[in-house]
């Protein structure tokens, strides 16, 4: 089972929910993995305190030009939609930071002067937090392209067990790469006009990927009807509310996970899981008939 935790707006509590969920599932004997796909700013390790013993560098394929074979015909630069190659009067200059690794330049070069080189975009670390599997990707600073790294993190999903994936904020490529293929997506929001606006975008994203989703409202206090009304209108299940609480906020600031921040949250998080499991099963049973 794959559960993605996404949000649209940043800082709404994705990591709080994802790590809390993984820790209570672990403590209740489930086989569970936490995968931090927010590779630009991964924070899950702060709450999970993992022991990482494996680290793998992740590369993308970039062109390397064999200048002596190159006839300076300009075909590669003409075909590259990412502008990662420039043909001057005496050489071809490559811009690996713009390359998306499509391999077009190498395939189409009439002189076979393009060799496959590689560029590091980040690392994937693997380890454990108690009996839970912990995986995270970390984008190399200065690198623009993150989806290939997200996909490298996703390769570590357990085939049998529960995978909880912590998504980056937003609704563009890296968030899409994370949520794609999930069985369910938890959308974490806060009851403000900002939270509502971005929740609507994130819900659209999940819908366009065909991933069923539900909402967790964080910092619920005044104004939570904003989100409740939206959920009713869109037919989205409202799964859990985390109140606006100084205790929880302070615990979070020190890296204390939600299940240890206040009494009762371990049970709430287990209920969250069983609700999600129910929703996935009913989606499987009835979703296909729609």
């Amino acid at each position, binding site marked *: 089972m794959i559960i993605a935790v996404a949000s649209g707006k940043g*800082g709404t509590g994705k990591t709080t929910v994802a790590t809390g969920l993984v820790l209570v599932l672990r403590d209740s004997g489930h086989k569970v993995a936490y995968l931090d796909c927010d590779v630009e700013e991964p924070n899950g390790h*702060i709450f999970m305190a993992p022991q990482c013993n494996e680290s793998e560098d992740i590369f993308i394929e970039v062109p390397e030009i064999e200048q002596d074979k190159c006839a300076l015909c300009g075909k590669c630069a003409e075909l590259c*939609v990412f502008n990662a190659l420039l043909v001057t009067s005496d050489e071809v200059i490559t811009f690996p930071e713009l390359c998306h690794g499509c*391999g077009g330049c190498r395939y189409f070069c009439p002189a076979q002067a393009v060799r496959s080189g590689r560029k590091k975009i980040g690392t994937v670390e693997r380890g454990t937090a108690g009996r839970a599997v912990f995986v995270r990707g970390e984008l190399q600073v200065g690198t*623009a392209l993150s989806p290939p790294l997200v996909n490298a993190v996703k390769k570590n999903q357990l085939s049998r067990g529960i995978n909880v994936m912590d998504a980056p904020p937003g609704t563009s490529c890296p968030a899409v790469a994370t949520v794609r293929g999930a069985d369910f997506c938890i959308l974490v929001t*806060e009851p403000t006009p900002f939270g509502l606006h971005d929740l609507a975008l994130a819900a659209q994203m999940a819908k366009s990927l065909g991933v069923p989703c539900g909402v967790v409202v964080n910092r619920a206090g005044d104004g939570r009807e904003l989100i409740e009304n939206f959920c009713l209108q869109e037919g989205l299940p409202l799964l859990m509310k985390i109140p606006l609480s100084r205790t929880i906020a*302070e615990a*979070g600031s020190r890296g204390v996970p939600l299940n240890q921040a206040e009494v009762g949250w371990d049970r709430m998080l287990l209920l969250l899981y069983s609700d999600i499991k129910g929703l996935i099963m009913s989606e499987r049973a009835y979703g296909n008939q729609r």
Partner: protein
Amino acid sequence: MKELTVISGKGGTGKTSVTGSFAVLAEKHVLADCDVDAANLHLILNPQVQHRESFPGMPMVEIITEKCTGCGLCEQLCRYGAIKDGAVDEMSCERCLVCYHACPEKAVQLVDNVAGEWFISHTRYGPMVHARLGIAQENSGKLVTEVRRRARTLAEEQGKNLIITDGPPGIGCPVISALGGSDLALVVVEPTLSSIHDLFRVLELTEHFKVQTAVCINKWDINPDNTREVENICHNKKVTLAGRLRYDPAVVAAAMEGKPVIRLPSTVAGDIVSLWDCVRQELGV
């Protein structure tokens, strides 16, 4: 002309609330919302759209079934696994057009694609350029570049000497596009371990792109120990600490009313005014 870019690394630390208040305090400026994925500045500045234009994305590809012989070359060449059984999955496709150029039957055709829209608007706090990227569209970086370019043109036309840019979270493609060539990056952090972790990565990024940087600590009194830690980091990295904003429920109240927080009577307003004074000095405007 000077450009200030407000960024954060970690999302939700208060970039937009800070930018919105700067919009009220600044004079002779243009606003730019470069968080094109999940733009929020318009929710507190109430813009009246004067001009809108669609933002063409890279063209999509489509396979013409009648021409396709099912040779499988496109599927084999696609690095993104976006072609299966003669159909293109739009969500996985990177628009590299390798399939289009490679198809021996010319069975792959280009389809125009609108990736988003950008706007020039009037607000009571000055003109604003903002945008909306379509869901799951590529090219957020290019749209950010477009928004910045339009903001600069607008500022030149109207004789403004400052652009205030609300940036996206993270350190990837759209942030790099929002940051390059900016005169000052203001990093909004919270005194949490997550935000501190992300601060290191953002400072590395601004250093990499050689952008002068200042830091502001939002909700500093939530965790004074972590606040001291942020101050030490700034000191060690020789980054200006431009201000500390206290936790104030007025920030959420203002967002609920759709107003910049500085427009409401609040204790944090004084902190924001001092922050702005410091940022203005750093910028030299």
